[in-house]
């Protein structure tokens, strides 16, 4: 019994001392480690998006970043991994908002392809081939006739994996890219309620549909000229009280100029106090017919949902 107590206490004391030492070292080194890794990450991001004006916002840790210049959304940076010959190749890829590759970077760190062969995918000449390409061109020349990438001689598996990682990553983040990070899930209910001017929410009827004292508010999307157009609609019985159309800074990616002018108070005011059946009779904004129609369609779609709920 006595020897057992001794054993436990010795192990306990050793563990305590060890924990104390480690917590001290941890406290001292943690900030340094973090600072280094964030500095390094930032410099990698800058390399694939060389414009000095832009800044990066992490959307998903180590995987997806949203890039903006001032308030304007200009593209994304993503990392996507694909198994190579003996390790996972994870290029960092900068993409502009039209889906064109700006630059890619294949970091050497953590990569253990064959030295002198597969490792050559990290060399600058290989990465540079990707600049300016779109999704269907990102293939090795030997694999697809549209392909514009020359593989590394004697390292086809590594080259193919690197190329596939860029192409498949682009596909993976396509939705995010086209909505500028303001996909349907990104407009939070708080935003919608603020934009609708509703004073108090009585009930969340369902996703994207709220009931207030004197009105219903819903959020609805419809594909416009280039991307989805989001519309927040306030409605009382059959009368549209007012709408709010997604602004460029809120993620709408329509052609600048005429088309983005739909998301302005002037156009929105045409929808104030209008009977739902008369929506179609309202004038479209000249030069932006498709987007204007998308707005009307979005209003009607949301209204149909509302009718279903009322029944």
């Amino acid at each position, binding site marked *: 019994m006595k*020897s057992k107590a*001794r*054993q436990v206490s*010795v*192990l306990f004391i*050793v*563990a305590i001392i*060890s924990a104390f*030492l*480690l917590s001290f*070292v*941890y406290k*001292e*080194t*943690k900030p*340094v*480690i973090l600072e*280094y*890794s964030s500095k*390094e990450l930032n410099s990698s991001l800058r390399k694939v998006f060389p414009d000095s004006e832009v800044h990066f916002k992490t959307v998903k840790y180590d995987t997806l970043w949203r890039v903006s210049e001032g308030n304007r959304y200009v593209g994304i940076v993503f990392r996507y991994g694909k198994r190579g010959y003996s390790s996972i190749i994870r290029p960092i890829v900068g993409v502009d908002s039209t889906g064109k590759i700006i630059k890619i970077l294949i970091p050497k*760190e*953590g990569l253990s392809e*064959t*030295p*002198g062969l597969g490792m050559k995918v990290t060399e600058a000449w290989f990465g540079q081939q990707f600049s300016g390409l779109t999704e269907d061109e990102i293939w090795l020349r030997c694999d697809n006739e549209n392909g514009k990438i020359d593989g590394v001689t004697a390292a086809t598996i590594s080259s193919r994996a690197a190329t596939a990682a860029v192409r498949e990553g682009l596909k993976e983040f396509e939705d995010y890219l086209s909505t500028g990070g303001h996909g349907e899930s990104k407009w939070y209910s708080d935003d919608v309620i603020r934009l609708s001017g509703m004073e108090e929410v009585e009930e969340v009827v369902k996703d994207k549909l709220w009931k207030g004292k004197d009105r219903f508010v819903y959020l609805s999307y419809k594909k416009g000229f280039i991307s989805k157009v989001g519309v927040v609609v306030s409605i009382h019985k059959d009368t549209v009280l007012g709408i709010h159309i997604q602004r460029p800074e809120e993620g709408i990616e329509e052609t600048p100029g005429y088309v983005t002018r739909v998301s302005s108070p002037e156009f929105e005011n045409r929808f104030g106090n209008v009977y739902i059946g008369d929506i179609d009779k309202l004038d479209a904004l000249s030069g932006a017919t498709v987007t204007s129609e998308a707005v009307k369609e979005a209003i009607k779609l949301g209204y149909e949902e509302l009718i279903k709920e009322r029944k």
Partner: protein
Amino acid sequence: MKRVFIDGIIKNNMVLVLAIGLCPTLAVSTSAYNALGMGLAVIFVLTFSNLLISLLRNLIPRNLRIPIFIVIISTFVTMVDYMLKAYVPPLSRQLGIFVPLIVVNCGILGRAEGYAYKHPPHYAIMDGLGIGLGFAIILFIMGTIREILGQGIWLSIPGVFPGFKVFGEAFTNSSVLLMILPPGGFLAIALLMGLYNHFGKK
């Protein structure tokens, strides 16, 4: 006491004589700089774990010694790991998993069990320094051989220094890649063991 230190380097050399801890030896001796980093890490861990174990040797119950050794060794290894990550991140990247794996390096556990647990602290420190230095020297020589033959350069430090050019351009462009691949590790270690046995016997 001096004897213990010298013996650690030559007579009890971890790699050439005891032939323990070969796994990290083969894995990280691809360049002289990596080898140097690993060697220093092992010297640090071995010396301090030897010292602490020797100090506690009368307190540690016999049937509990292995878990206590492991706790002590892993404490120092974790300290080294954090410090490498914080102050020499590129080296930490290169060594990768082999730094945490020092915990299970049988050389270190072997010295704890076989020497430090049975000897007073000043001897244990000397043993740690000697054995550690012996390991580091061999690792450095292997790294040198493999880097020079495999890449034609010596002492390159990633991101800081491109390395001394030992051979001309023609060699660098078609170096003996085999030497930085795993077989090169075996070749280098065999060469060193052979030389040691040849001259050691006389």
